[in-house]
């Protein structure tokens, strides 16, 4: 009953045999061994599995691999380039936007799409924009800062201070 699919992941084409019910997240993690995409729930609630499918952020735990046939998938592993880290990756590191790192790849991929639609989001817009991604560690303040940092950098403006506002 297996079905052949072809997906392009981070620009590389893969032809794979999958079961029709196989989830995209399992194919990414277990067949392609790109383990940066995580699984945090079974109800499409946490966003740890967020990747881009044809440029749109989706929860890969709720998409069948066969639905991705012929499409382009981007995961956290494809964010950095030969030139260096993606501004979002840099933003997260510079602003302490992560603790355990488990939610981070999903947050990053969600934020990529967020900034594509809105290159200068307000704090409120960022908070609503990442509301589908849970983080249990950071309390979100620094994730917001990290995304603001990246958005400034991507607009070619000076990045805000990364010093903690710890009076």
């Amino acid at each position, binding site marked *: 009953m297996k079905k052949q699919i072809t997906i392009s992941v981070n620009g590389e084409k893969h032809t794979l045999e999958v079961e029709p019910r196989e989830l995209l997240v399992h194919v990414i993690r277990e067949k392609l061994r790109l383990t940066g995409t995580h699984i945090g729930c*079974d109800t499409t609630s946490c966003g740890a599995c967020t990747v881009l499918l044809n440029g749109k952020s989706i929860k890969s735990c709720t998409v069948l691999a066969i639905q991705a046939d012929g499409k382009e998938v981007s995961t956290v592993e494809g964010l950095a380039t030969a030139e260096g880290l993606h501004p979002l990756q840099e933003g997260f590191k510079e602003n302490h936007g992560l603790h355990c790192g488990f939610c981070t790849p999903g947050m990053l991929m969600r934020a990529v799409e967020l900034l594509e639609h809105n290159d200068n989001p307000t704090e409120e817009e960022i908070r609503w924009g990442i509301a589908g991604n849970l983080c249990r*560690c950071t309390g979100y303040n620094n994730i917001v800062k990290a995304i603001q940092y990246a958005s400034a950098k991507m607009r070619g403006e000076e990045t805000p201070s990364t010093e*903690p506002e710890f009076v």
Partner: protein
Amino acid sequence: MGHSLKRKEDARFIQGKGHYVDDIQLPGMLHMDIVRSPYAYAKIKSINAEEALKIPGVIAVVTGKDLEKYNLHWMPTLMSDTQMVLPTDTVMYQAQEVAAVIATDRYAARDGKEAVMVEYEPMKPVIDPYKSLDPDAPVLRTDKEGKKDNHIWHWEVGDKEATEKLFNEAEVVVKEQMHIPRIHVSSIETCGCVADYDKINNHLTMYMTTQAPHAIRTVIALVAGHVGLTEEKVRVVSPDIGGGFGGKVPVYPGYVIAIAVSFLVGKPVKWVEDRSENLQADSFARDYHITAEMAGTKDGKILGTRFKILADHGYTDAAANPSKFPTGMFSIGTGSYDYQTTFMEADAVYTNKPPGGVAYRCSFRVTEAVHAIERITDRFALEIGKDPAQLRMENFIKKEDFPWKSPTGWEYDSGDYHAGLKKAMEVVGYDELRKEQAEKRKRGELMGIGISTFTEIVGAGPSKDFDILGIKMFDSAEIRVHPTGKAIARFGTKSQGQGHETTYAQIIAEELGIPAEHIQVEEGDTDTAPYGLGTYASRSTPTAGAAAAVAARKLRDKARKIAAYLLEVSEDDLEWEPGKFFVKGAPEKSKTIQEIVFAAYTNHPQGMEAGFEATHYYDPPNLTFPSGAYICVVDVDKDTGEIKVRRFVAIDDCGNIINPMIVQGQVHGGLTQGIAPAMYEELVYDEDGNILNGTFMDYLVPTAVESPSWETGHTVTPSPHHPIGAKGVGESPTVGAPPAIANAIVDALAPYGITHLDIPITPYKVWKALREKGAN
């Protein structure tokens, strides 16, 4: 010290190169899934695996009867109670493990799980902990010979008679009944393991999500030593952990079954629970019913407190407390206030709910204690009509009175509570807010200001009092400096996101003058790291952090000897500045730490041991007592009950700060885990023991939208006994935030005569309380 060094560990996490348990894929690895009980209390009449075994890929179904043959169907809990690995005849809570399906891939394992047929005979469960003590309640633990009721233990501390007398004679007595709800740590990574038993070498490697790998190795050896898995044959590896918060301290049945199966079939077995299993079956936290009372004078002097607790432990006492302390550190509940009369007592009971009582970002029941004292203090202020900030200022233990002996026997090491609250009031603009509130009240609008000024107790702990299953709660550091002056340091703790790779490197850098970038920190592999009891209860900095400082100082002593030899002067003629020794009065004559280390391998003084490494096991002389002053401002919508947290200011005092960025990050995260039980989270059961919100769809972990923009700050009162004056911070915000929020909401509702609401305080609870008090 005091430098916001960016984290060394981040490079891998932001590029998808973290290495978590579920990322492990070994050749020939089998997958395990677990059949769970739909009933809270039932006899198992039969388990039929026939259909399951027909599914391609399913290779075995393991039941309690199978484990019984090896005497592995029960295991000890950390509190010396017993817990089923798999049941042989009775299930005690909904979602309890009933059988395990082993298959060649995860889909087949899940199919197998659906196909196992279990016949149950449901019984009437005991859900309400108060009813569990009724004389006609069924005795749940019939496995315990002679057990005639559901009572587990009684605990008390303080002076009962003096407290009674005080309460009988006091001018003012206030009392509230509180429930600190059953909640769940909900780290975004669930629990799991890969058990890899190598038959030929009789060796087990256990990759697992554990905060305490060394303790786990010892437990495995104690439980499975009789089948040949003695301690030198067991290696526990805790790779990157996706959040722990206390939930990854216990040993869950899934781990034991995976080990047993791997041992029997000689292949690696992976078990990773899904989120719903994690919420429904893994250890809960809190669930204390507390009657809190405070006695005082009409003009606002606190004279005494009394707390009576009923602790719902589920069907076994699987809490994670140090052995001597069944209620953990609840006795810190006299708080930050200067009085000497208290009495506290607790009774624990069995019910048909999952076991647990883990120290969720909390030094063992401190959260419960702080909620009780901070809520009842506000209640007292309300009763006598005094401003709650003023009342606290008048009752705080004074800075000069430290070290301070608490009426329950603790010696608070240091603190400056007045400074903390003063700063919090300034930052939030307290006086202005009170004015605004008065005006709003005139207009009938609801606004509340809530304070929590808590004292924490962390860093368990001194060996004279602290052990888990007999193992003393020290922790350790081992530092090896290579010939070129670069180091590797290993620890008995295990980070789950706290940033140990950075902060430990900073501590060593500070003491030894080697740049933090040149110090690689490793934890979590019992084959290489020195023994320690792990990371929880904010103990890493107080114990392993201290061990790092002491081990580094041992190395500095050795460095001084080598420097004296190299410079041909006596040791007393040398002075240290970070990174080098120089001759007093002749600073041009010096040796850098790198030169000294190189000499330790190439030209060490005769008679001295070569090499440059040191280990230290740090047994703290006392606990540390961080504190905080938190102020929360809320606006409540009278018509809908909706609560908006407008401001939240948190001023923490965790002693000397190693990395302000990381401390602040810990505070942010802890505050969000504080607002969670205050307003959103609670595991709810119906009277049949069905969990009503056992998934992330309805167990409400706050998102970035619910989480306010936190305002943080600090005061510094160093710990006098810690080698670098640090105190630990991870749990302070989780402990301190809920009462600040609850106090703010109750303050908003005070005009309606509302004096208390149990957390989580939801819009519906507020709306209902307002309606009951006549709002329309």
